[in-house]
């Protein structure tokens, strides 16, 4: 018989889900925030995003060639890494930082560990940590972050206090004033208190939500990030347990411990909407490769991210803790998987 039959193990039918399809959807979900970044910070934001993506894709192709494995850049996973890396840069970051960061993310964090599926840490976040350690002035301690169009860096009116992003303002200026209230002038305490008051009303939450408060280019507008997050949730490409567990933990801890003047006085809206929490909770803590595979594990992972984020924000050396929180929990992921193995059907 001339006919050749294909023989394979069952099953013989498959869903149309695929890695390229998932990654392309993640790219699409990041488009609103990317468009927002260009709107808020101008053409340089676009330059950073384009260069970061180009560098990620180029580095991946080069590494795969060198490794002698099939080049799989068309699955878009490097594009996701490039966009996320760019999102973590301030709008005044030099162009080469985008290129170098993405190259580090792909070559060191992803390909050296075996390529897609084998990396331990989220490549974009690990690269951000690398940039932060190498060029701290540009990456974080600068008070020179550009303000978004139609807004200001802190989003509040300040008298006698230097402009900064909200979390920097709280960590570097406001909390120190409260901590040594005896040694600073009453006027300073008063103006610090006025800042906190301004940060605790609906107008301010609106500014954080729509994007009139400064930060790195991708975290500016909560609305645009949530829009992309909803797309991923409806397609089940991310598990709702991660954003809910992460943001929920941050909210609770912010309320309990976040007030500089006592327990249960924290500003929940501020901690949830400011900084990189939504970007992290929807797009980075949900990274499939570097987070646990069981539902129970995802809860533990999410709550752990929330705890570390608030620990760093309130007690740590950096104003923002999202990146390191997720990286720490990435590290714990194999352990979480080991201890959250489901009890099998009929198991004792």
């Amino acid at each position, binding site marked *: 018989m001339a*006919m050749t039959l294909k023989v394979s193990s069952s099953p013989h039918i498959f869903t149309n889900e695929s*890695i390229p399809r998932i990654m392309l959807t993640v790219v699409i979900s990041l488009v609103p925030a990317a468009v927002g970044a260009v709107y808020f910070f101008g053409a340089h934001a676009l330059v950073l995003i384009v260069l970061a993506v180009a560098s990620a894709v180029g580095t991946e192709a080069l590494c795969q060639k060198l490794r002698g494995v099939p080049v799989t850049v068309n699955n878009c996973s490097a594009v996701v890494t490039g966009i996320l890396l760019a999102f973590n840069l301030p709008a005044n970051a030099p162009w080469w930082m985008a290129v170098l960061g993405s190259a580090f993310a792909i070559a060191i964090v992803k390909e050296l560990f075996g390529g897609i599926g084998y990396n331990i840490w989220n490549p974009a976040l690990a690269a951000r940590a690398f940039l932060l350690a190498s060029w701290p002035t540009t990456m974080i301690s600068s008070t020179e972050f550009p303000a978004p169009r139609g807004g200001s860096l802190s989003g509040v009116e300040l008298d006698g206090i230097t402009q900064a992003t909200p979390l920097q303002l709280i960590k570097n200026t406001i909390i120190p004033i409260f901590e040594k209230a005896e040694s600073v002038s009453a006027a300073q305490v008063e103006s610090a208190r006025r800042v906190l008051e301004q940060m605790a009303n609906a107008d301010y939450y609106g500014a954080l939500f729509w994007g009139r408060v400064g930060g790195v280019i991708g975290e500016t507008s909560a609305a645009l990030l949530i829009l992309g997050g909803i797309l991923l949730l409806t397609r089940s490409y991310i598990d709702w347990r991660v954003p809910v567990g992460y943001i929920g933990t941050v909210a609770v801890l912010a309320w309990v411990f976040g007030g500089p003047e006592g327990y249960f006085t924290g500003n929940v809206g501020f901690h949830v909407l400011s900084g990189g929490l939504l970007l992290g909770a929807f797009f980075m803590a949900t990274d499939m490769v570097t987070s646990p595979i069981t539902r129970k594990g995802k809860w533990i992972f999410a709550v752990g991210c929330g705890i570390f984020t608030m620990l760093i924000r309130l007690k740590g050396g950096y104003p923002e803790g999202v990146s390191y929180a997720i990286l720490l929990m990435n590290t714990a992921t194999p352990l979480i998987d080991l201890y959250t193995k489901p009890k099998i059907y009929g198991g004792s």
Partner: protein
Amino acid sequence: MFKEATFKGGVHPPESKAATSDKPIKTLGLPDNVILPLQQHIGAPPEVTIEPGDKVKVGSVIAKPTGFVSVPLHSSVSGEVKSISDQIHPTGVRMQAVTIESDGEDTWEELKIESGTHNELSVDELKQKIQDAGIVGLGGAAFPTHVKLSPPAGKPIDTFILNGAECEPYLTADHRQMLERKKELIEGVKMIVRILGNERTIIAIERNKPDAIETLEKLCRKEGNFEVLGLKTKYPQGGEKQLIEALTGREVPSGGLPMDVGCLVQNVSTVLAVYEAVTEGRPLIEKVVTLTGSAVANPGNYKVRLGTMVEEVIKQVEGEMPGNLGKAIMGGPMMGIALPSLDVPVIKGTNGLVLLSDPVPVAIHQPCIRCGSCVDTCPVRLIPCELALFAENERWDKCREYSVKDCIECGACGYLCPAGRNLVQLIRYGKYTVISEDQKKNK
């Protein structure tokens, strides 16, 4: 509304049943030859009792059982035994088989008809008739039915489940039989209930067969106290363990059998075979098979003599061979076997032939991205992605630690995997390696 009975996990592949679900069962013409492999059930293969050149009739015993966990094999045509030789089995391996050339007469052995008198038979006589008829689980597992109906004294059965779920996509043979042979089916259920002496009897059907649910419900209202229950349409709802979980909330212990939780499951074709064996003394010589798939022009449900070549079935139905046949699956697309050749016979476990035209879907086996969909879908709650990695790296200790032997090979994980990984293939590799290690240890 009550919550639909179902199990945890599972998938919703396209049902693809519309092409055949309303096609009445047709009987195919007699084949010129049949090839009857001796090993068609789990257990000891029967021993050949004929020689080449012998004349046989339909229903003549051609091989006798070699123990309790064994059943006889009967000729499915009348004619002459041509050979006893190794032939390709649907699984791709060569196995001893009897080839019989049909004389076209279709002369039957005399059947011991006992219609209406089966109530006078003892339970042991009933079981003997079932064994004599060569009946095995026809859902695919092919375990001798009389053995399954003989639980040890310490394991009383309180619930008998008639499995009418037919959750495999494409297949409609059980669906049609439930509609067309409802009375015989209920009579068969009564026989099994008499053997088991169980309290509760459930006829379980997926909700995508509302006509079957309605028909059997109507009949059961008149005929005794069997419950007819609609199940959520979800694969693998018809898996024995999933069915028990859905209907009773019980979980069959790992490594155990349904009787460990007082349950016994039989599928529709098996119960009909029991009915025929008891009332007519008719041995198992034919099977209702759904022939369907993208490469089939005349999909339908056909009654086929056992041992008929797949190629013969296709020729009789289609007239000619499909032009661009890419894959021929014996069984459904989730758990069926991809046939290496069409020169293989229909056997007792065959319930469908799904022919897919080229290009057929192919799993591309890329690296796992740990999306977790296999973990969420696994009805046994295994971690398929990790098990597959362990098997790929031949870490048998880890396979064991992650309960590889509990995999039911339903294929839900492989169906969903976005990386197209050969999860089931790898897990099977691990499973059977571990099982054979265990067997060596026990020797």
